[in-house]
C-alpha cells in the first residue's frame, strides 16, 4: 500500500517514472523506517531507498541529527566525492509519506560476518582500513559553511552523559565505574579542532563491495566534535566480530587506518584515538544495558533486546583488556 504513495511521489521528481515495484521494509522502529524499492521508468528500473519517520512522527529522538540533516550530510558527502548515495528527493507534505528522503540504492554488503569471512570480499579486506581512513578524513573535511545545524559533543559532556545513563539503571558495575574514573582522569578537554563527526562509523553502516567501500550510511548520530572520536569508535572490539587482532572492524590495522587518514593532509592523535576507543567500548556496554531496560519496560519486549543486555559483559572484558591488561 506504500507503493501507491511512492508511485505518486516518484512521478513528481523522477523523469519518466511510471510507478514503483518491490517495496520492502528493511528495518523500522516506531519512529523511523527504511524501505527498499525500485523506480519503474521507460529505461528499466532504478533501485531506491526511502528513509522516513512515518506521518505523525515528526520530531527526532534525543541524540538524532534529524532526517533533514541526514539528507543534507549525505548529499554533501556525495558532492565531495565520498562514497555516499545521491539523495534523489526530500519528502514534502504533499507526498503524504511523513518526513524523510529518498536516495539511490547502492548494492553491496553491510553484514560484518560476511564481509570478514566470504571469499567475495577477500581482495577488499586488506584495503579497507586505509580506504576508510581516507573516507573519514573526507567527512571531517566537509565544508563547515554548508553543514546543517547539529549538536556539539565534547569528551567532558560525553563522559557526563554516559555517567548519568549508567546510574539511571541502578545496577552496580565495578568495571564501568573503573572506566568512568579512567576517562575522567584523562579527559583531554575540548578538542583544538572541532569538525563534523559521523558518530556511528562502523560495520552495519558501511556498504562494502568486492573491491572497496561503496557507501557510508546512517548519519543519525552526526554531530560536531573531536574528529578522533570516529577513529576510536571504529576500533572498538565489539565491531571486530572475533578477529580481535585486527582492530579496525576485524579487517585492518590502526597503522593502515591512520595512514589513509593522513594521506589527505589531516593529522591523527593516537592517544586521543585510544581515549575514544575506551569511551566507545563503555558507550556500547551502556547501550547494551539500555536495551535490557527497554526490554523490561516495553513496548519492545523481544528476546533479541533481552539477549543484547547479556552482551554488556563483553565490553567489560574489553575494558579490562584496555585498562588493566594481564601480563
Amino acid at each position, binding site marked *: 500500500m506504500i507503493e501507491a504513495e511512492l508511485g505518486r511521489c516518484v512521478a513528481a521528481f523522477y523523469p519518466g517514472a511510471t510507478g514503483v515495484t518491490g517495496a520492502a521494509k528493511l528495518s523500522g522502529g516506531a519512529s523511523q523506517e527504511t524501505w527498499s524499492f525500485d523506480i519503474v521508468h521507460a529505461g528499466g528500473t532504478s533501485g531506491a531507498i526511502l528513509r522516513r519517520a512515518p506521518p505523525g512522527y515528526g520530531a527526532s529522538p534525543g541524540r538524532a541529527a534529524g532526517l533533514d540533516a541526514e539528507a543534507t550530510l549525505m548529499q554533501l558527502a556525495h558532492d565531495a566525492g565520498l562514497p555516499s548515495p545521491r539523495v534523489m528527493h526530500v519528502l514534502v507534505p504533499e507526498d503524504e509519506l511523513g518526513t524523510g528522503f529518498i536516495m539511490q540504492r547502492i548494492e553491496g554488503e553491510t553484514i560484518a560476518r560476511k564481509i570478514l569471512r566470504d571469499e567475495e570480499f577477500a581482495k577488499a579486506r586488506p584495503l579497507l582500513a586505509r580506504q576508510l581512513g581516507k573516507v573519514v578524513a573526507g567527512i571531517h573535511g566537509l565544508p563547515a559553511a554548508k553543514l546543517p545545524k547539529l549538536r556539539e559533543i565534547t569528551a567532558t559532556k560525553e563522559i557526563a552523559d554516559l555517567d548519568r545513563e549508567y546510574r539511571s539503571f541502578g545496577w*552496580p558495575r565495578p568495571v564501568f565505574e573503573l572506566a568512568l574514573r579512567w576517562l575522567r582522569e584523562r579527559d583531554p578537554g575540548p578538542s583544538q579542532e572541532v569538525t563534523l563527526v559521523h558518530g556511528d562509523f562502523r560495520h552495519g553502516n558501511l556498504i562494502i563491495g568486492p573491491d572497496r567501500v561503496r557507501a557510508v550510511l546512517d548519519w543519525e548520530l552526526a554531530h560536531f566534535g573531536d574528529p578522533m572520536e570516529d577513529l576510536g569508535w571504529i576500533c572498538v572490539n565489539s565491531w571486530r566480530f572475533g578477529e580481535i587482532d585486527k582492530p579496525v572492524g576485524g579487517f585492518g590495522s590502526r597503522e593502515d587506518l591512520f595512514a589513509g587518514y593522513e594521506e589527505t593532509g589531516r593529522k591523527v592523535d593516537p592517544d586521543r584515538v585510544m581515549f575514544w576507543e575506551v569511551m566507545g567500548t563503555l558507550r556500547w556496554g551502556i547501550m547494551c544495558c539500555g536495551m535490557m531496560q527497554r526490554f523490561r519496560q516495553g513496548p519492545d519486549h523481544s528476546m533479541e533486546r533481552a539477549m543484547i543486555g547479556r552482551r554488556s559483559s*563483553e565490553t567489560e572484558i574489553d575494558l579490562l583488556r584496555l585498562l588493566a591488561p594481564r601480563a
Partner: protein
Amino acid sequence: MQDEPTPTELIKAVADFLRNEITPAIKGHNAFKLRVGINALDLVTRQLTLADDGDAAEQVRLKQLLGADGSLLELNRVLSDKIAKGEVDLQTPGLSEHLWQTTMDKLAVDQPNYGSYKRELGNK
C-alpha cells in the same frame, strides 16, 4: 523437594529439540529469532550450572577486599561506590584480580565464544 528432571535437563532437552528438529524447518527472520531463542536457553543452562560457584567465590573476594559483609548486590554497590570516589583503584591489592575473575565468570555464562574471553582463557 522438587522431583527430577532438573530445570537444566528440561531446558537442555527443549533447546536440543529446537536446534535439531525445528531449525531446519524455519526460514527468514524467524530463523534468526529462533537462533536467538536457542542462545537464550543455552545461556540459562550455563547460568544454572555455573553461577552458584562463581557467585560464592565473588562474595568471598568482595568481603576480603572491602572488609565488610552483605549480599552480593550490596557488596557490589559498595565496591562501585569506592571506585567512583577513588578510594580503591588498580593499585589496590586484589582489585584487578577480583575484577578479572568476576568478569571471566560472567563471560563463561554470557558469551563463552567471545573472542576476548577465549584469548584470556588461553593466557591464564
